[in-house]
């Protein structure tokens, strides 16, 4: 919606919008304060004192490091798989029209359109039926499945803006299919893929519902946090980990935003 005159908004609207945004952001900021509290047993506010000692305690906890390492490895491999599958799918859907094209896009979107618990329990029961033991790879299998859609969305949006005549021109000028892909298609979609990859990484890093069904005994960072939320052991450590998780997911989102902000569709608008 555009209005040509530079009107200013009614006061009521300004207040309502500001309150809405504050409602979205204040709770997350609170996490940063609690990471420094000296209180160990309860969630008392205001914090009785501030200390940085919990950062050192968290640093020396092997379980936190193990969870972090597992999360990063799962997210990296799932992102790699999702990048390949998502790009292939986006290229096929946007460059040609064929029978069943709509079905393919539905197929890609379905894993995050349906509630995570359905994806999770479906995978778990399939693993049980096929006698597949839980492992690192069962987690990756689940994560890659719902990460495809993020890459796909970004790549499709970019393919839509790339004109087909550029590919034809490249072929007319004598490049073969591989050269065209390497020198024309790839540079065009590179930033979209990078953005999609960042978002896929963030999505996988944060995923908890599907993971609870496919992880067995292993703990990713979200599983570790969930465990702490249900059966708290050392609350200050949870506070510190929560703060670190906020910071870690912040970076890829900001990067993805800056990579795609000039386009008509900005990365991340469809989680």
């Amino acid at each position: 919606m555009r209005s040509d005159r530079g009107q200013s908004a009614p006061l009521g609207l300004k207040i309502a919008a500001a309150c809405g945004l504050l409602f979205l952001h204040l709770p997350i900021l609170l996490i940063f304060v609690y990471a420094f509290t000296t209180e160990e047993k309860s969630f008392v506010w205001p914090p009785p004192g501030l200390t940085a000692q919990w950062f050192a305690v968290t640093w020396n906890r092997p379980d936190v490091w193990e969870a972090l390492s597992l999360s990063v490895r799962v997210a990296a491999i799932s992102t790699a798989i999702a990048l390949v599958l998502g790009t292939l799918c986006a290229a096929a859907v946007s460059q040609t029209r064929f029978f069943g094209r709509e079905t393919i896009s539905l197929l890609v979107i379905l894993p995050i359109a349906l509630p995570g618990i359905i994806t999770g329990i479906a995978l778990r029961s399939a693993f049980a039926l096929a006698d597949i033991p839980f492992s690192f790879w069962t987690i990756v299998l689940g994560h890659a499945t719902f990460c495809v859609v993020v890459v796909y969305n970004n790549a499709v949006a970019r393919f839509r803006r790339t004109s087909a005549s550029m590919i034809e021109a490249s072929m007319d000028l004598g490049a073969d299919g591989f050269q065209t892909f390497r020198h024309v298609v790839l540079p065009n979609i590179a930033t979209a893929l990078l953005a999609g990859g960042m978002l896929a990484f963030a999505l996988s890093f944060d995923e908890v519902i599907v993971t609870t069904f496919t992880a067995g005994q292993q703990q990713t960072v979200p599983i570790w946090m969930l465990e702490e939320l249900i059966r708290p052991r050392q609350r200050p450590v949870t506070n510190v980990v929560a703060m670190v998780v906020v910071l870690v997911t912040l970076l890829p989102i900001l990067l993805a935003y800056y990579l795609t902000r000039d386009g008509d569709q900005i990365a991340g608008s469809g989680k």
Partner: protein
Amino acid sequence: MSLDAAMPRATAPAILPGSGGLRGALSDLFWRRPQLLLLLMLLPPVLWLGIVYIGSLFALLLQSFFSIDEFSGLINREFTLKTYGDLFQAANLDIILRTVTMAALVTLASAIIAFPIAYYAARYARGRWKALFYLGVMLPLWSSYLVKIYAWKLILAKEGILTWLLAKLHLLWLLDGWLSLPVVGGNSLSVSFTGTFIVFVYVWLPFMILPVQAALERVPGNLVEASSDLGASPGQTFRNVLFPLALPGIVAGSIFTFSLTLGDYIIPQIIGTSRLFIGQAVYSQQGTAGNIPLAAAFTVVPIVIMGFYLWGAKRMGAFDAL
């Protein structure tokens, strides 16, 4: 360039010989048969999603037609509708009704809170402010789901910041009065339906803002001006012009808020009462109870509800606003 110099090129054959080597041959093959390339591109993702995802969904659906032997606890792999009979017991119907009511209330509240933000961002925010609004919605959307829930545990705890704030404002009687109400009340906000409701709204709100904003961006500003020029009050303009045009966006957003609330089991487990929601029922049936058939039958409920919901949403044109 003279005409003579250009001549030799023109006499070159119009059809070039095939490129050499395996790579060249492949490239030529793909150019001549684009369907083959298409097939090769589609095969990996379709195989992956088809086998891993659709296969699993099918396996799940299949299991809902099995039943559990009550004495041995073993799963009887014969076709039966007994499990669906179990699903429609009063206790389970309660769970379904409770979840759907919560999903509807959460959707309504998200729409009300989302509208001013989306409207301001679409109509008044410019340049730097526009980007700020965009990131302002995007960052909470992508922040860790568990951290957001944890933040609310801190806020709603009995000794937490909300109680402190209300005490400072001398409004504790309001909180106590609310908590003493049946159904929505409880010992503290973090173990009440009110708490569950607030957290649901908080966590899904960005999913509502983005499509509503997208729908409002497409409303020409002069429509609103025309409406007020023709004598409509702001309230009338909202009711008769803005709201109908924003509705597809609201419906699109409600697909997310509704579906996500239906399937969630972590929020009501961490902030809520001991009364179950669909997601928790599924989780406990497949975990502690070991009754996979009933858990599978339970997951069919949100799938069916969302099927109808999506069908209705499509008729209202909500998919154009996604």
